[in-house]
């Protein structure tokens, strides 16, 4: 049984020196004696530190070989179990496969161009690959590069995804039971095609189908002998779809898992995307304090040139988070940065979101005249692709500004025009709007009621499920 040690515990410095195996000094010797004396707490502290130090040394030793000037000499290999004349032919030259993959880059781009042009062009582009040695890589790269097409036209991206999956059926299968995998096997193309399908479906707003589409991708990646990266991509895309579906807990789990693997594989652009997705998710949940560091890390990781769209959105979402936290000056500066980027890169759909955010910021600061003007401009300038829900909220904000400025006639006119378009209004069936219109008729409409209705609809938009509590028509 270990005896009780009552002497003062050694400092962390002494224990760390002991763990790193430094020259024994007076303090280190005393620390060793203390641990050997049976202090279980310090023995555990020392064990933890030693484990950490040895882990750091192990990693350093591995890296030292990778960064060495000269390749270290390896011990002579003993005769393996396979006959020596079988081994050399087992591996195809990586150089040859690299050349194949390079030859596939242009055909992959041509497939994407053909997908934009139409079905006949796409079929012709796919047929032009027949009997070409780089066909597998071309199909694979086309699926991976099609994310731009998803943003431009999700229907065309969906068609492309399904065609790529069909085309891949004739490719060589992965040989996961062999020691070396097949280059660009059928399963890898099908997995990427399934991920493309998921992205296209999500872009179309079909979050449930998008999540379903990821499932076969997981299976295909598994069959192709995935080393963890494919599974992380599946987690990321399913997490994005689950977040869109407001299944926040599950989405957070998936996104965190994907982030860990992207970090392990050192892919900064994917780390940035996963961080931005996590920040947005937490912001939608109302957990603003936790979402800020995610945006900061996303902005550090994303590349300013190739990821400009994501950077703009990350700035916008970070600014919104500042606004919700009442840090208005920081919010304004961040919105300005986002707007500047969006205008410079002609990202018109992003400009709409940022302008909405800036108008809301003016509203939060009590600058109702400025906010009113901004919300009216947003409604006036909106294009057909603008979110209908955000437009309704902008009109409610405008009505609230009018009420707070004492312009009740214009306020009633604004709400009346909302009622006229109730059929097309995405919040049309909401009981909140029912109370708003009823109070308009009864002359009980004021800024507080509009704010009450607007906050309820904003919560509904963010996926917060709560029943509507009438403000004026209670009982």
């Amino acid at each position, binding site marked *: 049984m270990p005896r009780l040690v009552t002497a003062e515990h050694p400092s962390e410095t002494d224990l*760390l020196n002991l763990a790193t195996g430094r020259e024994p000094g007076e303090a280190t010797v005393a620390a060793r004696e203390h641990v050997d004396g049976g202090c279980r707490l310090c023995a555990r502290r020392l064990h933890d530190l030693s484990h950490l130090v040895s882990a750091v040394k*192990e990693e350093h030793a591995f890296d030292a070989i990778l960064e060495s000037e000269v390749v270290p000499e390896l011990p002579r290999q003993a005769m393996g179990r396979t006959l020596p004349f079988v081994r050399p032919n087992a591996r195809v030259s990586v150089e040859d496969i690299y050349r194949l993959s390079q030859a596939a880059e242009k055909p992959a781009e041509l497939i994407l161009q053909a997908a934009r042009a139409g079905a006949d062009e796409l079929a012709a582009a796919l047929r032009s690959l027949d009997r070409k040695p780089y066909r597998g890589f071309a199909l694979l790269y086309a699926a991976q590069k099609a994310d731009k097409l998803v943003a431009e036209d999700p229907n065309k991206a969906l068609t492309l995804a399904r065609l790529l999956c069909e085309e891949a059926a004739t490719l060589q299968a992965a040989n996961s039971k062999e020691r070396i995998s097949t280059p660009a096997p059928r399963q890898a193309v099908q997995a990427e095609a399934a991920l493309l399908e998921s992205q296209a479906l999500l872009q179309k707003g079909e979050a449930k189908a998008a999540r379903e589409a990821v499932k076969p991708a997981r299976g295909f990646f598994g069959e192709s002998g995935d080393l963890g990266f494919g599974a992380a991509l599946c987690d990321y895309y399913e997490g994005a779809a689950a977040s869109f579906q407001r299944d926040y807990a599950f989405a957070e789990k998936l996104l965190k898992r994907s982030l860990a693997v992207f970090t392990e594989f050192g892919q900064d652009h*994917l*780390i940035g995307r996963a961080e931005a997705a996590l920040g947005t998710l937490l912001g939608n949940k109302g957990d603003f304090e936790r979402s800020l560091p995610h945006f900061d890390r996303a902005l550090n990781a994303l590349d300013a040139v190739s990821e400009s769209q994501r950077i703009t959105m990350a700035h916008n979402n970070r600014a919104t988070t500042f606004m919700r936290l009442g840090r208005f000056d920081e919010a304004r500066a961040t919105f300005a940065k986002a707007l500047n980027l969006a205008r410079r890169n002609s990202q018109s759909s992003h400009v709409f979101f940022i302008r909405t955010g800036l108008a809301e910021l003016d509203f939060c600061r009590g600058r109702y005249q400025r906010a009113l003007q901004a919300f009216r401009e947003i409604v006036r300038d909106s294009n057909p692709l603008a979110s209908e829900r955000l437009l309704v909220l902008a009109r409610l904000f405008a009505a609230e500004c009018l009420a707070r400025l004492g312009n009740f006639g214009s306020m009633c006119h604004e709400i009346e025009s909302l009622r006229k378009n109730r059929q097309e209004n995405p919040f049309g069936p909401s009981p909140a709007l029912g109370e708003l219109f009823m109070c308009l008729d009864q002359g009980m409409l004021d800024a507080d009621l509009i704010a009450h209705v607007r906050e309820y609809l904003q919560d509904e938009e963010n996926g917060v499920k709560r029943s509507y509590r009438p403000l004026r028509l209670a009982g």
Partner: protein
Amino acid sequence: MTEQRKRFAPAELPLPARPVWNWEELNAKFRPRLIAAGVIRFGLTQDDCEDAAQTVFLKVLAMNPRVRDPKAYLRAAFLNQCNNVIEARERRRGRESALTDHLAATLIDPAAERVKTVSAVTSAYKQIDPKCRQVIKSYCVEDMTLAETAEKSGYSPKTVWKRIQECLKRMRACLAS
């Protein structure tokens, strides 16, 4: 005047493009070092490491449009593949020595442990400040004194010690998870 106009003309935005890989460096320099690291650090056979390197090079080529830092990808994928090789070897050994599955599972290969450690430390390093990383390496690996580490990093010895404490704490949490 023309000169002035030129100065104020809107700067042309570079096209978003993937960085081009230095294939020569990857294949001729990085590949043999990966193989050597697998043999020396994890005790795998050269054949196993060559197969693992071949597999991860095919994987990185298959993921080409998605991968921006091929070296980091290859390093992580190679570690995972080494882990797979060690696990397969363990399963084979378990069958050959007629151990029960339960008993075989309890015998953890130190090589597998080392592979996992390297992966975990890499991930943990990614989550701390690069300057902190340097401080940790100087103090724990290169055996520098606090004063030497402080001089090298440009911090005061007190700050260095504070940083070491913070980083070790965070790394411990990363390794534990």
